[in-house]
């Protein structure tokens, strides 16, 4: 991580912030997508996370914590996007409805579609912890730091989330 870029952005240098953002936008978007399971909401959550990062950067004490700090903002933005979606009454489409329109294809892509649909049936916290673990390969200790919960809680939540996901995937098969 470029500590200098973070420090410059923290001091109000917008070019530095833009460089930081461009380096991370793919990752942030994918993490958002894995939590909100919807491209429009992932776009909103990504934008919200970066705007929040810019506004709150002056309060980031330790530049080396930028990555974990940004991930926390992303998780929070994605949760907010999910809440907003609930208020809008968006209906989740079951995976089998999507798959029936696609015909036979690459199994891993079908699994991706199933996963997206199954994630839609989990709570925001479960989606977040699964994405941090399976998509971003974050160690348990780092997930604890990002979600601001104890190590043991991460483990038990991850276990429960994994069970819930497999159950949701099974229902959609």
């Amino acid at each position: 991580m470029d500590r200098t870029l973070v420090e410059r952005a923290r001091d109000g240098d917008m070019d530095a912030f833009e460089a930081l953002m461009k380096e991370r936008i793919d990752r942030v978007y994918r993490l958002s997508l894995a939590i909100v399971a919807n491209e429009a909401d992932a776009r909103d959550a990504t934008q919200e996370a970066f705007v929040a990062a810019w506004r709150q950067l002056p309060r980031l004490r330790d530049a080396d914590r930028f990555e974990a700090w940004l991930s926390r903002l992303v998780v929070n933005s994605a949760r907010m996007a999910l809440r907003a979606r609930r208020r809008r009454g968006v209906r989740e489409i079951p995976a089998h409805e999507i798959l029936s329109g696609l015909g036979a294809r690459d199994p891993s892509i079908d699994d991706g579609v199933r996963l997206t649909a199954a994630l839609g049936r989990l709570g925001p916290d479960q989606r977040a912890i699964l994405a941090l673990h399976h998509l971003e390969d974050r160690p348990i200790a780092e997930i604890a730091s990002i979600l601001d919960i104890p190590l043991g809680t991460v483990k038990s939540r991850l276990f429960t989330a994994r069970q819930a996901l497999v159950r949701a995937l099974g229902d959609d098969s």
Partner: protein
Amino acid sequence: MSQHAWDDERLGRAYTSLAGHQPPRDLTTGIMTAVRASGQVHRHVPAFATRPRWLALGAAAVLVVALVGFVPGALPPGPRGHAHLAVGGIELDYPSHWTLHDQGWAATGRGSPWAILGTLPWDPGCDAGDINCYYREKLQPGTVTVTIGGFASNVTILDTDLENAISRRATIAGMPAIVYDRGRVPGNYYEADLDLGWQIASPESPAQFVTIQAMMRGPGVAELRRDVEAVIASLHFTRPLPSIPPSPGSAVHAVRIAAEALLARDVEARESAGEDASSIYSCLPESLGGSGRATVAYGPGGWLGGPIHVECTATIESIQNLWWRVTFFVVSGDGSTRPGARYTETMWLTPIGDRATTSDEGEVPPALITSGPGAAAAAARAVAIALDNLGSSTPDFYGCFPREPGASRTATISTDPTGLTHYRATRALCSTRVEPKADRSAWRLILTATWKATGSAPAGRLVATLDVDAVGQSGPPIVTGDPIP
């Protein structure tokens, strides 16, 4: 279509297919447009009309001032001889001959600094954005410096201990505050003759503070103090202060708010743990002040490893007519590894029931390990969690052991249980065994690695024994046997 079960590998591939998604092309532009519109710090608008050198500019200047007044966000001038500052949700007036710095510095150990006011000249060599450069400046004779900032604590202002003799409680801008008068601190780096401080609760939460520190050096300390105290007297919050109406219905309202707050915690716990989970928050008493009982599987930190009985009480109090304080008190009972353990959660709510801050004390310990049907599955689950956790730090040793109790496998070890890495790999047979402890507080996990002699390296055996509780938390391993070659 059905493939294998949803194991780690298949799940990993499915997540990888999500990783192929790219953000929309115009998203970068959209973000930067939003960032530019958002701003990072509050800006000060000078009080033109109060400064004599501006008055000479005549009618044209008056017109400019009038126009500035219509700019959205522009602030009205302060009283004569004073300038006005709006920052961080507060507004105040300060002597117009003081200078203002509000460059939006990074947070420091003193919290987040918003603005620095006063008569202390800054070293011209200092970058205006470098707060530490300012912190190095010593006071010069007859100068004052006032640092204004924000600070979020995990302790509310009402629970903050007073420092004997130098602090007292007060009300500033309608909110609870603590005032510090440290007088002249011997050996003070800044050479201040007077060091004053204010910590004021913000309307958002009793655990968020506006902090103000004023240091001054004589001569003229009395006059400088008056100036600073006038600044504090002018301070007010831009948002309305919280207020609990003293109406006859407020008690009924309070009960409803407390119940809703606890039910909301229950919903949050269920969102994390699953709809069918029974969390401690489901242990709602029938009435405030009464006690409730429940059998629960989820505590404040998550899964408890099995069902335990809990007894709980809840109270609500109006605190200074500003906030509600809901206290939820849980005692663990049968099924717990430590019956009688206490957990207290304190929620501070705004008058309309929004949660302002939450703190907790104590814990809800995990459940006893199960000894009946399902014991083997429960042990396997806890062992898998424990090995995953241990393996995240020393994968080359704990990664050798199978997750299933009673199983063995051959793998390569290059690290000992303490994480010390060896320069050669040892092929070892690793077996996992588990047995319940007599008091059912945990399983005893016994990990045995054996290896044959190769070349000059002798055969050996190493055993790591550790306790694993029902949620998979493990104690420190006790390691005996031979050193890994």
